[in-house]
């Protein structure tokens, strides 16, 4: 029991960790990693029902997908650029970052390794069966090994788009273009593509 309690205390830290992407864009009091997870899990569940996916697996996968960020931190697609001045950040954030195939592979592998180590550290004292399950769900999510893994990974981006649109809709504090560019490359699920059209209608069309 004590090991479980310690695990719950550790993951509770995500309730206070603000997502870096919003901090970089100057959003005041932005959402935390846990609040992103909360809505993402519900989206994955409700839209996953339409696809007759394994909802038990989808929910667990959504809940654990960002746990590694307790130790690995929250990364953004812009991390490679690391400008020193605030002004430069503003310019960089106007466009979706483009990388060569080699750079993408390198970043993917480095991120995977770092997050995998963080996850191992976090689940180290959990019972073996739970450890195995969390490890497998996370690998599935990261690599998109199954229908559920590919779906949840895309839902992660869709929830992020919804949050971006909510922050953006009032006073347009940042460029929304990169989110749309990214989503058109990442999402191929028909249910999510239909949902994205609904987002477009709601936030961009009268």
């Amino acid at each position, binding site marked *: 029991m004590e090991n479980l309690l310690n695990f719950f205390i550790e993951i509770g830290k995500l309730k206070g960790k603000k997502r870096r992407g919003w901090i970089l864009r100057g959003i005041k009091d932005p959402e935390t990693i846990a609040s992103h997870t909360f809505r993402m899990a519900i989206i994955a569940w409700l839209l996953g029902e339409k696809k007759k996916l*394994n909802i*038990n*697996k989808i929910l667990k996968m959504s809940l654990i997908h960002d746990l590694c960020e307790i130790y690995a931190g929250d990364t953004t697609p812009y991390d490679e650029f690391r400008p020193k001045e605030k002004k430069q950040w503003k310019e960089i954030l106007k*466009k*979706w*970052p*483009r*990388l*060569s*195939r080699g750079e*993408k*592979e390198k*970043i*993917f592998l480095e991120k995977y390794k770092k997050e995998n180590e963080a996850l191992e550290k976090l689940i180290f004292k959990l019972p073996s069966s739970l450890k*195995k*399950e969390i490890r*497998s*769900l996370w*690998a*599935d999510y990261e*690599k*998109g*090994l*199954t*229908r559920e*893994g*590919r779906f949840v990974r895309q839902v992660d981006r869709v929830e992020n788009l919804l949050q971006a649109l909510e922050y953006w809709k009032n006073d347009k504090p940042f460029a*929304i*273009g990169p989110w*749309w*560019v990214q*989503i*058109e*490359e*990442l*999402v*191929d699920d*028909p249910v999510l*593509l239909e949902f*994205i059209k609904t987002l*477009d209608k709601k*936030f*961009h069309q009268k």
Partner: protein
Amino acid sequence: MAEEKKFYLTEQGLEKIKKEYQDLKNLKLFKTRGEIPKIWQSEDLNPEYLSFQEDLSFLETRIVELENILKHAELITAPPKEKQDIVNLGAQVIVEVDGQTDEFTIVGTLEANPSLGKISNESPVGRTLLGHRVGEEVIVSSPIQTVYKIKKIKYSFS
């Protein structure tokens, strides 16, 4: 209901599906006999198999799904030389977007991994690029219009 769609796979991807199908069929055999296969003791268990531990119906659903994929699988091969200047499945495409260069490989949905530059042929960008040649510009329209200029197309398998 099983989908009547084609599943485009590279040779490697197809082999992976065949292996999973065989593994799961063996697993089902074990489970219906009430035995616990050794695979559960393995630390590097295939994540797909884990949810089947609890529920035989999910295992059966997945086996049917794999059968459907195998039945409708279409191997991605390089097009004839005279058509290698057109974006098709399996093409590595170098594009210019918004003044920057990017590189994609167009694959089927089962093998897509945008973090590694593998874009699904069913994504809006993948779909739009298909059938276009070097030098052409394609526009992907979401609320934001994005122009992809095709700089180079390459097929690196036989």
